[in-house]
Structures are given as C-alpha cells and as structure tokens.
C-alpha cells in the first residue's frame, strides 16, 4: 500500500498528496484538512490546504517564483491538486451510492410500519421523520467514537507505512514532517 504522502514516482520536484480515497478520508479525519505540498531545491516551496468547509489556502515561497525549474514545480503541484479533486469526486460518487442504499432501507422500514399499522401516506412521512431523528441522534452519539477510530487508524497507517519512506525522501532533516504525537489536532 502506498503512503498518504508518497511522491509521484520518477519526478522531481516531488508533489505529496493523498493517493487513495481511504488516505483522503484519513487525512480529513486526523487533521480536519487535506494538504498537498511540493518540495523543490530548498524544501517545501508550495503548500495547499483544503479545509473541511471547502475553503482553500495555497502558500508559495518567493524563492519558488524565481526558481529555474518553477514551471515543473508548479505543474507538479497543479497535477497533485487535480488528482485530489478527482479523488473527491470519486469519493462523493461512492458516498452517494451508500446514502441511496440507506435511504432505501429507511423508506422500506417506513413502508413496512405503514402496512403493519395500516396508516395513511402522511403517517409514513411522520415515521420517516422519526427514523431520521433517531438516526441523527445515533450519529451524534457514535460520531466521536468514529472520529477517534479514524484518527487512530490514520496515525497507525502513517507510523507504519509512511514515516520511514518519507524521512528517507527528505533532502534535509530541518524540513522533516512533524507528526502530531499528543492529542488529536
């Protein structure tokens, strides 16, 4: 399995971005943001952060603007960002299929309730609303546990698969990635 921050192979400068939907979800869960960064000669030269609410901040160093290979660096960075965009679209398509399935199950439950109780169509809506409220309540209760689980999974994955390779890819120790070791960020 590739790590969340593997460079695009055979290229220089290197762009680092989540490679799979699982890594993308883990990044969002662990850091409340997606980060794409590109390394040049003097370390990180371009960094893009996409926040959970969709806002994006891109930071570029002034050195990078006068860099002889800036075209390649920018191209790499844009490529990595477009790749993340494509992953987001794929993830949404999958999530849409899952929600359609869940909505179908909820509707089936509501219909079954209606048949058993021999109630009217508006009653189905009330039942559906009730089921939805219970669903939201359960989500509210389960969410912290789910987030904790995702954070632990992401950390375990980063620690076991990416840290060694990432450190090996670093030109200098001063620019090493600092992974959170205390409470979740």
């Amino acid at each position, binding site marked *: 399995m590739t790590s969340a921050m593997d460079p695009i192979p055979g290229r220089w400068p290197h762009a*680092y971005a989540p490679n799979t939907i699982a890594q993308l979800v883990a990044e969002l869960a662990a*850091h*409340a*943001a997606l*980060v794409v*960064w590109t*390394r040049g000669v003097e*370390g*990180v030269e*371009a*960094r*893009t*952060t*996409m*926040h*959970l*609410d*969709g*806002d*994006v*901040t*891109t*930071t*570029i*160093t*002034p*050195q990078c*603007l006068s860099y002889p290979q*800036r*075209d390649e660096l*920018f191209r790499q*960075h*844009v490529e990595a*960002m*477009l790749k993340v*965009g494509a992953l*987001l*679209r794929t*993830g*949404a398509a999958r*999530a*849409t299929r899952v*929600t*359609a399935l869940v*909505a*179908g199950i*909820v*509707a*089936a439950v*509501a219909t079954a309730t209606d048949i058993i109780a021999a109630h009217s*169509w508006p009653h189905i*809506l009330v039942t*559906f609303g009730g089921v939805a409220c219970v669903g939201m309540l359960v989500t509210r209760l389960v969410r912290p546990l789910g*987030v904790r689980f995702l954070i632990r999974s992401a950390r375990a994955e980063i620690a076991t698969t990416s840290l060694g390779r990432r450190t090996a890819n670093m030109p200098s120790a001063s620019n*090493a*990635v*600092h992974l959170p070791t205390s*409470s*979740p*960020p």
Partner: protein
Amino acid sequence: MGAFADRFGNIVRGLVSLEINTIVKDGMSATRMGAPPQALSEIATRYATWLQSYGSRYDAVPDPLTAQYLEGLAVKAEQVKASHPDAEGVAVIATRIERNARQLTTIFDRLTLAEPDPDELVQLRKIWEIGTETVVMQTVLWIDGDATQRIHPGFADTAHQQLLAIHSASVSMSLSYWKSVGDLIVNVFSSAWEKLTSK
C-alpha cells in the same frame, strides 16, 4: 442556546461561500499545525510580533497562553489600525488580527479541551494558515453563483501566470469538494423522496 446559534451560524456561513486564498511567504516547512494550544501560541506570537513592528508594545506570550492575552492583542490591533489610517495594507492585517483574536477568545476554552470540536479546529487552522501574510490572490464564490476575485497588482502580470494557474487549480479543487458535498445532500433527500413517492 446562544452558543448553539453561533455555531450553527458559522456552519451555514461556511457552506454558503467558498474562499480561496493564495499567499506568498518566506520560510515554509512541511510542518503540520500542532495541537491547538501550540497553534494558539504560534498565532499569538506572530500577531504580537507584527503589532510590535507597527509601534505596539510587545508583551511576551504567556505560557500557557490565556484568553485575556488574545483579547489584549485585539485591542492593540484596533489601536494600530487607528494610528495608520492611510496605510491600506496595515489596516487590512490589523483588522484581521482584531477579528481573529476576538474569535479565538470566544472559542479559547473549547479549543484547549482534549478533543475539540472539528468545526472550531477548522477555524483555528484557517487562522494559523493565513497568519499575518498578505493574500496576493483571493477568490470568493457564493452559493448563488456570484464570484469575487482580487489580485495584488504586483502579481497580475504575465510573469506570474503560473501562480494564476495554481490559484485556478485551488478554485477547481474547492469547487469539486463543494459539489461533492452538495450532491451528497441533494441525493440523500431525493433518494428518500423517490422511495416514498414510488409507493
């Protein structure tokens, strides 16, 4: 109830617009934002240093940081803004410091909990990312389709075309995310409606 209304307001505001910023700044590293107390201290240090460069008195950032210190920074930012009425760049960043310091004061206690709320973490992260840097390109997209784009005059020439390309890719990425979330919400309701009405 007031706190809930504030938080709900923040979430709604976050969904109705997208803000894409491009910043040029020195000395970037691959360091991620640390735990909230550490990020708060870094923000306070950057703000205090910036305010000092515009004549404000520097008070060392306390360890641990307190909400009162952040409130003090907001007051100092107001004073700097008042004392530099003609310097537009100064007013913009002083206003940003004032607003952000006040916002952080409001959520300070919750941010220092062991597991802070993700919505408040997002706010903290944005404030930490932008710091006191000048935004050279900014695009704001509204849910009704309106879009505002601002470009720093020093970066609007052909020499910075690549920077524009990166900014444009940022806009695309943001829109992809927004569209994905929107599709998901619409789909939840439309699927449920279809299942109910097809009975």
